[in-house]
């Protein structure tokens, strides 16, 4: 499973790319693999304010539902609307075109490094 070194992670298998005060969030390759074929993504409204740990939506495969949790707190400045019609992007390119939302934030609390996330995956397997 690919775990890019330039991203940060959560225990609930989201990834975070921090650029300035914007954090882009998606789910990891491991998470999409566990889910299987993604058929639906529920996205929050642009402008919504999230606190770290808030459930902000869900990714659904044919067989399962996985709630999404905000890795950090902040305001939703953009959602990936392309996922409405092409949810399979999450399977095909979880760290790229399958991104889910962008948060305006300075919160960095409780994120895992790539090395820490890899260790978590090993422990879970």
């Amino acid at each position, binding site marked *: 499973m690919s775990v890019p070194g330039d991203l940060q992670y959560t225990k609930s298998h989201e990834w975070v790319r921090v650029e300035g005060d914007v954090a882009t969030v998606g789910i990891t390759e491991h998470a999409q693999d566990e889910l*299987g*074929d993604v*058929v*639906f993504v*529920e996205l929050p409204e642009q402008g919504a304010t999230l606190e770290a740990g808030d459930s902000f939506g*869900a990714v*659904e*495969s*044919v*067989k399962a*539902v996985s709630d999404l949790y905000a890795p950090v707190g902040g305001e939703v400045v953009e959602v990936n609307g392309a996922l*409405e019609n092409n949810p399979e992007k999450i399977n095909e390119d979880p760290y790229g075109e399958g991104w889910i939302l962008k948060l305006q934030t300075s919160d960095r609390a409780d994120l895992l490094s790539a090395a820490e996330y890899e260790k978590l995956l090993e422990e879970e397997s």
Partner: protein
Amino acid sequence: MAEEALKRTPLYDEHKEAGARLVPFAGWEMPVQYEGVKAEHEAVRTRAGLFDVSHMGEVVFRGPDAERAVQRLVTRDVSRLETGQVGYAAVCYEDGGTVDDVLVYKNPDDFLVVVNAANRDKDVAHFREHTGDLEVEISDESDDWALLALQGPEAAGILGNLTDADLTGLKYYRYVVGEVDGFYAVISRTGYTGEDGFELYVRPAAAAPLWCRLVEAGAAPAGLGARDTLRLEAGMCLYGNELDEETTPLEAGIGFAVHLDKEEEFVGQGALRRQKGEGPRKKLVGFKVEGRGIARHEHPVAVGGETVGTVTSGTQSPTLGEAIGLALVAPGVEDSFDVVIRDRLVPARAVPLPFYKREKE
């Protein structure tokens, strides 16, 4: 509480080798998917898929009162079954709630009742409890059988190359005993997918070689994930979802398997007769989600913000590309209602069942 070890079917190694994701299911370690649910679903709808359903239970009724015993236990009138015929039926409690849904095979000298894996012990206890006065031996022979389901439009072609049994003469819900690739098999034209297909009851030692032959011949391994989306599109009930001890077969829409007029009284018959007269407390409806979202098992159904039922099964239909589901709702609910998906009211519309019906040749 000590965790009981999960049981494995004789095909465990084949699943591992094929890259299956194995999950606990009804006390068994079962493949939920191989390539992916959508690909496996499509293989069954357009070509052929192969399922390991060896976890299902096989209970045999023998002895002079075998037919009376089965008559007393299931809702269908099994005296109308011919030898070589299979009947779908429910098993009920005295109050009409459902113990299980089963297939009854009428053999020349006995009856085979095929039960859901999760209900096996409960069923056998129920069977014995209600037949103590009869001369019948009720024997749980599940461990003597493996069960492979070969399903899809190409199933008959694939199987025909491996058996001398007359498949063209074998009608739906009939079975023959024969050989498949040299292995003893009960070849049953039944299934849980809405496609043509066969369920093959074989000895455990035959399961792996036969599985490999069928895969070589073009059948795609398919897991419980696809089995569930396929049966839901076909509008078939799943015990634990549509059927349970709180729900009667009449409420769950399988009245076609309930013969209230049969001579031998069956357990629950009085309650079901009363319900037929008074009207059911709830009814099963098929629906399509019209807003955005996928309804799932246990999501509430609401009209005007008031809860009027519960979603029993729901998924994104791979064949239709729409979110579909089954729900048990109050009898008066009209064709338009909401499903409550993560606290959101999403409009849905009742549609006739099944969602998918294959084109017959």
